[in-house]
């Protein structure tokens, strides 16, 4: 049997658990198995592990341990942040501002709020996927109670001007939430520098376990719970705590804090991959801002082919990536992020996201750059859209220029 080389380039989807994290979780499962609410020694051991993890997570983002509420993941943290603060402040106002490129955990929470009497403004983004501060200023109303803008976009890796928005929100006395699931561990995240009141985190994006995340809630910020049935997590998130997951999250957070400078090294691999793709594949464009971008994200659109077919072909060569095509988004439309950036449907269908991680090497990048052109060529030769040498004459191009 010939063994295919395996290159994992989907770290924004999830990351492998680090050995130190798995070890800590094993101890939590076998030795710290008590219920943290119990008074006996077993319970106390679990409680101690829980509070240690809370400290580790708080330290990662410059928060106080008491400001960390553990959740089942980034999705629940986003749901709790947006719906919890909106409900707690509904007497003050009904208006919320967010962006059109948020994660669905956020967008779907906003849709739920709209059905329940709130009004939501979805800010547009520029062609690089950046929110414009002037658009935010123009959207502010007397009854605006919450602004929620993600720190880094999960698809195109664009870093939003969170500090600037944080300052505006603080000046106007409006609560400010950011989804930092894709930024933490990759670039510095400090709740005081960013001036945020709420911030969402997820463990499995930073080499921790799935099924655990956290919401940072600045002291004094009112949030109505979405779960009921106990006093855990200061009544904000009742239910017996997921100790193994939380302990793993704590360890992963500690390692992420210590290893943050190392993430900068990935910029070299990222840029090598971007430059190599643009050079070797004709009719290929970079999606998202080139500079204001996390060290791990590469997102390109390869014209005249469809993303899922590309992913399948890459998978046969052992390369794991993702796409914003309709087929992979689970709906009939391609990525809402790329569409919001003004990229037309046809080009969004051919988008390819490759996200780097700490174990990737230069050899991995060389392998991808060697294999990808032939894969693209094969699919393009099958495509009725790849009709001419000069892309400018193609029907697709004409259609796109109208967008």
């Amino acid at each position, binding site marked *: 049997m010939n063994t295919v080389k395996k290159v994992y380039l989907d770290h924004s989807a999830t990351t492998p658990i680090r050995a130190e994290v798995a070890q800590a979780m094993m101890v939590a499962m076998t030795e710290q198995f008590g219920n943290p609410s119990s008074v006996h020694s077993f319970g106390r051991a679990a409680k101690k592990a829980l509070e240690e993890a809370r400290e580790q997570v708080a330290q990662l983002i410059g928060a106080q341990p008491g400001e960390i509420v553990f959740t089942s993941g980034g999705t629940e943290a986003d749901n709790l942040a947006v719906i919890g603060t909106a409900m707690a402040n509904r007497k003050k106002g009904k208006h919320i501002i967010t962006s059109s490129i948020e994660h669905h955990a956020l967008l779907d929470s906003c849709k739920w709020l709209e059905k329940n009497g709130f009004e939501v403004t979805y800010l547009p983004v520029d062609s690089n996927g950046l929110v414009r501060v002037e658009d935010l200023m123009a959207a502010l109303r007397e009854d605006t109670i919450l602004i929620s803008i993600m720190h880094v976009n999960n698809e195109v890796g664009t870093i939003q001007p969170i500090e600037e928005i944080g300052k505006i929100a603080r000046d106007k006395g409006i609560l400010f939430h950011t989804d930092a699931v894709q930024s933490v561990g990759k670039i510095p995240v400090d709740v005081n520098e960013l001036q945020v009141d709420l911030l969402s985190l997820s463990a499995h994006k930073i080499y921790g376990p799935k099924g655990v995340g956290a919401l940072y809630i600045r002291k004094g910020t009112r949030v109505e719970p979405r779960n009921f049935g106990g006093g855990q997590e200061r009544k904000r998130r009742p239910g017996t705590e997921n100790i193994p997951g939380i302990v793993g999250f704590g360890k992963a957070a500690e390692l992420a804090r210590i290893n943050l400078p190392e993430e900068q090294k990935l910029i070299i691999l990222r840029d090598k991959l971007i430059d190599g793709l643009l050079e070797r594949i004709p009719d290929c464009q970079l999606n998202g801002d080139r500079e204001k971008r996390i060290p791990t994200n590469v997102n390109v659109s390869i014209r*005249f*082919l*469809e*993303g*899922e*077919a590309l992913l*399948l072909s890459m998978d*046969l060569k052992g390369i794991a990536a993702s796409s914003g*095509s*309709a*087929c992979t988004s*689970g709906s*009939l439309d*391609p990525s809402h992020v790329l569409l919001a950036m003004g990229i037309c*449907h*046809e080009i969004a*269908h051919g988008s390819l996201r490759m996200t780097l991680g700490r174990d990737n090497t230069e050899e991995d990048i060389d392998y991808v750059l060697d294999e990808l052109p032939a894969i693209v060529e094969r699919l393009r*030769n*099958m*495509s*009725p*859209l790849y009709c001419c040498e000069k892309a400018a004459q193609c029907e*697709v191009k004409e*259609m796109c220029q109208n967008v």
Partner: protein
Amino acid sequence: MYSEKVMDHFTNPRNVGDLENPDGVGEVGNPTCGDIMRIAIKVEDNIITDIKFKTFGCGAAIATSSMVTEMAKGKTLEEARVITNKNVAEALDGLPPNKMHCSNLAADALKLAIDDYLAKAGQVG
């Protein structure tokens, strides 16, 4: 999520390409939804003697296109015309449910190619 047969037809698609002077051409889908299939046929004595496809789309779109060309080749026009999208999916040992509508259009493209041939033949004769 795909059957072995789908992966086989995706990896080694049959009858890819264009025909010179085709007798009939059928095209379905549009690039906005992410799927376009074009099928071209050669017809002699009421039989499909050659058939080629070109497809822009996902794995299922490519596999169904390949499969329908294999099913139609050597068939009479009447036999080929009754091939349904469902038949194609079954011949591939099934498709994931979300692919049944958006990417399973190859039989429609074949039907359009046959109709195109019949219309042209009708005009000439």
